[in-house]
């Protein structure tokens, strides 16, 4: 099915099931520990051997020699896989560095061996008996130092320019020129990357924790040098991804190689302390923002430049993306520059581009509003645009940023805020309120599904779509229930299996809208098959397990009496996304307390107001937003992969050293969804929501800290040491 004209009225608009805040259909499995994750398929794999990954102990150089004798002689060891004995391996299209390194080492903790043994304990112990002699080479690890060597990247659209920025900035009555930094961050999902692999003849069967099944199949096949048809990849439950499981990682490739070498099913989970340097991360950025405005508060000049680093062949963090679209302003430029760094692979993490970009931009806007003496909400409203500022002929499909700001201001009690920084005291605490705009582009992508109508009237959906905690199982079931006119419990959803039609997968907040649109397409086809089978004429209505058309009213299940009906289709997209700018919008409001003595910041209240098209399930959508807000608090206050600039690695590579928020850091969170549909996005009229929720959060926290303390920190995370010297004297505390 092709979606190339704006959506009109369709069966989804009935909203009998879609749009309802139903409980997740996989909830009983998840809450009872019966959902099976990649390392847990004991039912299917009776006696797996255990693989333990060895990571490189240097950041850059070569392996001179590797002594496996002790490890091989260790009890229980079945096989040891290294680059030396693995046979020729390719590199996945989505990988920057090799997943099995050696002799060349590209980054710290790059996998260099897998030890396979009868038990986990034996494999772990033997892994320590591998002795490696390295020849180290100097590397580049410090973005600030590498900044001057950064180049214009060869991919994407690194530069944009409209009007005369330099002239307008020079002439502007009020100017801001500030540099912001965001640190390297880790996805730190709770389930480590894990895989269970076995060979059925020349066919690889692999359970792995992966967001993108089809990409996974392609890159497993390419890396191992086998046809895609010989890879059966399953990822039914994923213990969090956030972009860190978009791509095949070492656990999958090494499990497959280990299983081949040991002639046994093998399972591999990355040890937590290995994950931070072995897998991908969100790269650090340095961002320079220049704003010029009239005294009345109209932006006339906007420039945003961002520097980030990656391994050779890698990509930049596209931190300027939102600046091309978020505010009006006739004269503007953006630029991305990429430096080569020998740290682990930089790649997508929840809202790549916008998340770090808004961390900078939305402080800059707050700073400019302060300079102008204008309320930061009013300043944003005054510079709203309803068209793509670089291409004014392109309107936004829907853009309700102003509504988000106004609704939020009202609900959060913004009016009561004393605009003067450091003006409110609450006992030992300095109190402050901050706001930031949220913006994330909406992406749509082809997605397929197969739908079966069984003799019993059960509707079964099969698609390789994944549920990484996003609620895919549930919203897909809701979509099928709505389309086929059956109650939710009459729908079975099967996901995450490469035997099923290729879907959008989960990433870039494209999954919810795209995958349900694919189910819509398949259901449309099934409806046609049902109508034909039942010999109905005219427009058919599917309600309450019945099909009504042309004055007849037949049980849906009757259509499958003679045998199951199966329909498969995919939703594909025309050029609506080119003709209309599709984005999602929101506003984040944060109230903080900063300890007047110690500078510890604690979040007291938070509110997000989102305008993101139709909300398919307000309950699961709200969860996406509060989860993103929580991650945004981490980004604001504590998350920081610290680079050891001598040895070239992330030092704090475990969950004690890399501090993500805990319960005590997060208050009750409020979310408001504006009632909206976007007919340009898909027949679902929905858009992404999961990444919008993090966009702008950290800046709202930073702005609240500024409001509380009068201290402007432009260097994330905003830890107490950055406030300490400028707090009021502690004897006043």
């Amino acid at each position: 099915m092709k979606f190339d004209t704006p959506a009109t009225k369709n069966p989804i608009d009935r909203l009998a099931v879609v749009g309802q805040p139903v409980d997740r259909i996989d909830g009983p499995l998840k809450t009872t520990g019966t959902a099976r994750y990649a390392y847990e398929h004991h039912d299917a794999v009776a006696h797996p051997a255990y693989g333990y990954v060895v990571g490189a102990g240097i950041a850059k150089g070569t392996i001179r020699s590797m002594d496996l004798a002790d490890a091989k002689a260790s009890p229980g060891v079945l096989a040891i896989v290294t680059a030396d004995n693995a046979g020729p391996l390719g590199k996945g299209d989505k990988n920057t560095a090799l997943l099995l390194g050696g002799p060349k080492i590209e980054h710290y903790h790059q996998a260099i061996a897998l030890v396979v043994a009868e038990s986990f304990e034996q494999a772990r112990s033997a892994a320590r008996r591998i002795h490696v002699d390295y020849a180290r080479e100097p590397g580049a690890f410090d973005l600030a130092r590498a900044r001057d060597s950064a180049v214009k990247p060869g991919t994407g659209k690194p530069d944009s320019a409209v009007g005369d920025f330099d002239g307008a900035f020079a002439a502007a009555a009020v100017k801001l020129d500030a540099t912001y930094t965001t640190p390297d961050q880790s996805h730190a999902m709770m389930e480590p990357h894990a895989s269970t692999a076995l060979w059925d003849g020349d066919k690889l069967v692999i359970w792995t924790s992966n967001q993108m099944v089809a990409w996974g199949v392609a890159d497993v096949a390419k890396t191992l040098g086998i046809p895609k048809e010989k890879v059966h990849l399953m990822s039914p439950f994923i213990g969090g991804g956030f972009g860190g499981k978009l791509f095949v990682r070492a656990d999958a490739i090494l499990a497959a190689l280990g299983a081949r070498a040991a002639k046994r099913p093998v399972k591999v989970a990355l040890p937590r302390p290995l994950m931070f340097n072995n897998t991908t991360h969100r790269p650090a950025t340095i961002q320079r923002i220049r704003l010029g405005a009239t005294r009345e508060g109209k932006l006339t000049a906007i420039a945003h430049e961002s520097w980030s680093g990656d391994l050779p062949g890698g990509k930049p963090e596209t931190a300027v993306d939102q600046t091309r679209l978020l505010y009006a302003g006739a004269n503007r430029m953006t630029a991305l520059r990429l430096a080569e760094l020998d740290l682990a692979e930089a790649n997508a993490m929840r809202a790549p581009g916008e998340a770090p970009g808004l961390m900078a931009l939305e402080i800059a806007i707050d700073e400019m509003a302060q300079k102008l003496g204008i309320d930061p909400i009013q300043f944003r409203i005054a510079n709203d645009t309803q068209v793509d500022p670089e291409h004014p002929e392109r309107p936004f499909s829907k853009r309700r940023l102003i509504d988000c700001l106004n609704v939020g201001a009202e609900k959060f009690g913004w009016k009561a805020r004393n605009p003067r920084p450091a003006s409110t005291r609450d006992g030992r605490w300095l109190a402050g309120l901050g706001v930031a705009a949220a913006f994330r582009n909406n992406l749509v992508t082809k997605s397929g599904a197969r739908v079966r109508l069984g003799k019993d009237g059960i509707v079964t959906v099969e698609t390789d779509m994944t549920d990484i905690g996003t609620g895919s199982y549930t919203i897909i079931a809701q979509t099928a229930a709505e389309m086929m006119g059956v109650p939710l419990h009459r729908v079975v959803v099967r996901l995450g299996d490469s035997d099923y039609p290729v879907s959008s997968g989960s990433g870039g907040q494209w999954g919810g809208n795209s995958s349900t649109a694919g189910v819509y397409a398949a259901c449309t086809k099934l409806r046609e098959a049902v109508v034909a089978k039942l010999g109905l004429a005219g427009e058919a209505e599917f309600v309450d397990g019945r099909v009504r058309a042309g004055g007849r009213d037949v049980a849906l299940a009757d259509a499958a009496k003679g045998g199951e009906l199966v329909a498969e289709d995919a939703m594909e997209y025309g050029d609506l996304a080119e003709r209309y700018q599709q984005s999602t919008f929101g506003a984040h409001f944060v109230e903080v307390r900063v300890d007047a003595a110690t500078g510890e910041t604690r979040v007291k209240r938070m509110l997000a107001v989102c305008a993101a098209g139709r909300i398919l399930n307000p309950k699961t959508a709200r969860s996406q937003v509060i989860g993103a807000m929580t991650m945004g608090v981490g980004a604001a206050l504590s998350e920081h992969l610290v680079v050891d600039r001598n040895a070239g690695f992330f030092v704090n590579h475990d969950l004690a050293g890399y501090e993500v928020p805990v319960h005590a850091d997060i208050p009750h969170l409020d979310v408001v969804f504006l009632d909206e549909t976007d007919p340009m996005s898909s027949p679902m009229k929905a858009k992404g929501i999961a990444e919008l929720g993090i966009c702008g959060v950290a800046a709202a926290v930073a702005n609240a800290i500024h409001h509380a303390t009068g201290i402007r920190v432009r260097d994330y995370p905003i830890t107490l040491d950055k406030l300490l010297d400028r707090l009021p004297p502690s004897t006043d505390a």
Partner: protein
Amino acid sequence: MKPFTYERATSTAQAAARAASVPGAKFVAGGTNLLDLMKIEIETPAHLIDVNGLDLAKIEPTPDGGLRVGALVRNTDLAADARVRRDYPVLARALLAGASPQLRNRATTAGNLLQRTRCPYFYDPDQPCNKREPGSGCAALAGYRRMHAIVGTSDACIAAHPSDMAVAMRVLDAQVETIRADGTTRSLPLADLHRLPGSTPHLETTLDAGELVTAVVLPPPPGGVHVYRKVRDRASYAFALVSVALVRQADGSGRVALGGVAPKPWRSEEAERALASDPQAVVDGLLKDARTSPDNAFKLTLARRTLDAAIADARSSR
């Protein structure tokens, strides 16, 4: 983790004797730090002596009005003890500021004292570390030092002691009771339990081989107002950047110990004499030989401000 044999101790004397005579033997109680380290082979015992069955889990009054806390009293139970909460609230507070409820349910009094540093380089076998591998060097010196000690350090090691409980016990003048391999017992001030790193950072305590901590004795309650102020990045389940244990008397005098700044709980009885008259002089005295890096120089300011805040807390709670 290397293979090990395992036994359950039958008596304190037997346990100590076995620990001294069996090569590579170690005691295990809560195991929350030992197992953590065994998994990455920073600890490689060949034999584990499980002391959990020993009769060391009681909290009893001492004849002079203090409390004798058995070595196996779990952190949760010590913090929940009514006498501790009433008479030694700085200790209850410190315990509750540490780790997580799950860890406190397992972790023991002795184990908490004997836990090892959380220096990330110590925890990374691919990095040089004099504590882990004497003579290999210290990667932290030129590396990331935000969580590290600023006093009591050496050119060989700048690791901080991670315990909160020990800081409170230090301010309470706790004594540590032990039994040695030959069956003799002794009592030593907690102040003397931990060594400074000097040139031998792998030697962390003054205990002999096989010596088993059996109890921590708290002297009679010191009175005054007790404050334990722990400063950290996230609000819970994190190690201290700086912590202050304060016992303040009505006249403003009292005792102060710092956590997060040194290889052991950091207190100076001499410096704290100034507490009533000039609290900042206490911090000056405690941190006078501080050696900082750009990463952790803030601890100097933070320690001052946290002591001020603790004093303010103490004042306002009376």
